[in-house]
């Protein structure tokens, strides 16, 4: 298998997890989805992905979780080199102002989706974040053209070509 870029979803309520994964269905052709019901499980998955030499492009994380909460989990990732480019999105209905502020300040949160979300808004966020990831990582954009923001990707490609010359 070639190099994989994963989407990780962390959500403890199974019905909500079903809905999130259904909305991410279209992305799975290129970005395999992994799911976890708590941050402990998420940590295990994250380690496995890194060990296999793959990486995580996007984490969608609930805040109120059993054990460690979502924001603290995102903060713990922030200090690790492997996740510098990983896009972090909080999907929650319940994070208070304090938690949200600390997520933005300490976990470098990229986006906050409040529940309930809409399919189109959700798609937009995922496309934007994954496009950012591909551009920042300077990956070959061709593979992602059909799925992500083709305008920004081709622009980035032109710029990259210019700087390479």
């Amino acid at each position: 298998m070639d190099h994989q870029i994963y989407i990780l979803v962390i959500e403890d309520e199974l019905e909500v997890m079903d809905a999130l994964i259904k909305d991410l269905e279209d992305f799975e052709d290129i970005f395999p989805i992994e799911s976890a019901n708590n941050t402990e499980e998420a940590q295990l998955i994250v380690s496995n992905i890194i060990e296999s030499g793959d990486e995580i492009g996007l984490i969608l994380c609930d805040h109120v979780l059993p054990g460690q909460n979502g924001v603290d989990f995102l903060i713990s990732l922030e200090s690790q080199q492997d996740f510098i480019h990983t896009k972090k999105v909080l999907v929650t209905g319940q994070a208070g102002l304090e938690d949200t502020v600390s997520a933005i300040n300490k976990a470098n949160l990229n986006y906050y989706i409040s529940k309930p979300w809409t399919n189109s808004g959700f798609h937009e966020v995922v496309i934007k974040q994954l496009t950012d990831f591909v551009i920042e990582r300077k990956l070959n954009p061709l593979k992602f053209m059909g799925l992500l923001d083709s305008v920004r990707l081709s622009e980035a490609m032109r710029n990259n070509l210019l700087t390479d010359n």
Partner: protein
Amino acid sequence: MIKGFQRGKRTKVLELINRTIDSTKELQSLVVNFSKDELLFKEGDSLPFLYLLLDGTVSLSHKKKDNSSFEVLKLEPGHFIGIVAFNTGNNSLTTAKAVQKIKTLRFSQNEFEKYLNEHPSLRSPLQQLMMSNMTERFKVNLELESKLHSLNNTLKDEGIELKEAYQQLEESHQKLVHQEKMATLGELVAGFAHEVNNPASSLLRSSEALVKNFQNLEKENPLAIMFNLGLNAAPLSSTEVRSRMLEVQKRFPEVTERSMVRKLSHISNEGYKVIELSGKTINIESLIQQHEAGKFIHNIQLSSERIANLVKSLKSYSRHDNNEAELVDIRDGINDTLLVLSNRLKFLDLKLSLDDIPKIRVKLGELNQVWTNIIVNACDVLPDGGTIKIATRTDGNKSVVIEISDNGPGIPETLLRKIFEPNFTTKNQGAKFGLGLGLAISNEIIRQHGGYIHAYNRKKGGAKFKIVIPLKES
């Protein structure tokens, strides 16, 4: 007694003086009469005369800062009028007014010494009168001083009482504001719950209608079977999904798309058999989609039922805030409270042993506030996985006992006595809210129900609240 003694002495001296006046022409010219309400002198006047009151009453009054005046002294026959000003040479401190027609002996400033010298028979009585006047005034002064002193003390006490009363007022004001807020909140919640019920029931009915639509196919149709399997599929944790996805890859090597593998992982072995049997005649993707449709409709049903249940308990939780006592089972209120707080209790271990208790006449909405306060306090100090125990029982035929305990850090012994006092809170640090009224109000509510609430620390650790409400014959 002293006054009587003084008056008697004064009368005797006065008689003597009157007799002297009768026999001395010169003295007769000093007699001056004033009619009722006539002023002898005004406050601030410089006094050229000293009067000896022979008959009638004179009132001395003094002006206050706000220009109103009050009576300082009533003078009777035998009293000197203007004696202070006369002795000190200062302006008069008072206004002297005849209460009725009066008779006085008027000496001018320089005449007085002269009369004392020229009429030796007057010298001694006048000096005696002067002396007794002074003594009387000194006594009055002493009495006034001691009165002032005790007044000051009373004032001080009253000041303290006032302070306490103000504090109590402040507390009850806060309590009222809090109660008002709760009442408003209750109304809001009731209105909100009512509004949410409509979409929730629409969701429930629509999903039921959808189920019928999907089940319209004949029963043996593989698509119908897959739908029904999806409708009844057990939810899988993400770990289970992962391990089943590996099995799916072995069993259906022809399926390569990861999202299809994931969908297959939710299907039971029974479903796999259906797919394997009919996979040649029916597109496998259609079969999987049918299963997925069933599963999502199941999710809709589950979620809308959850909404309906939450709304139901919110409604009954707040409905009772109409301040009327009703004959109810307290446990219903406890269950409603637990559902309303399910968000906070999600990761705690809740142990209920709600023994049968008789219905009692209480204000259920208010009691719910008590459970809420105690449980929320416990939630605030418990880590994930902490335990809250709630037990109900009857104590003989006398009372109902409700015990709420946790295995948290307990309450510091020094604070145990204070926690039911208003404005006691440990939640002031950081952005945590807390008026410090929760337990004070709880205490008040239980007291109004004729019961009591006690807080202990358990020997095994953690806090315990015991609420006892008497069974009243109704």
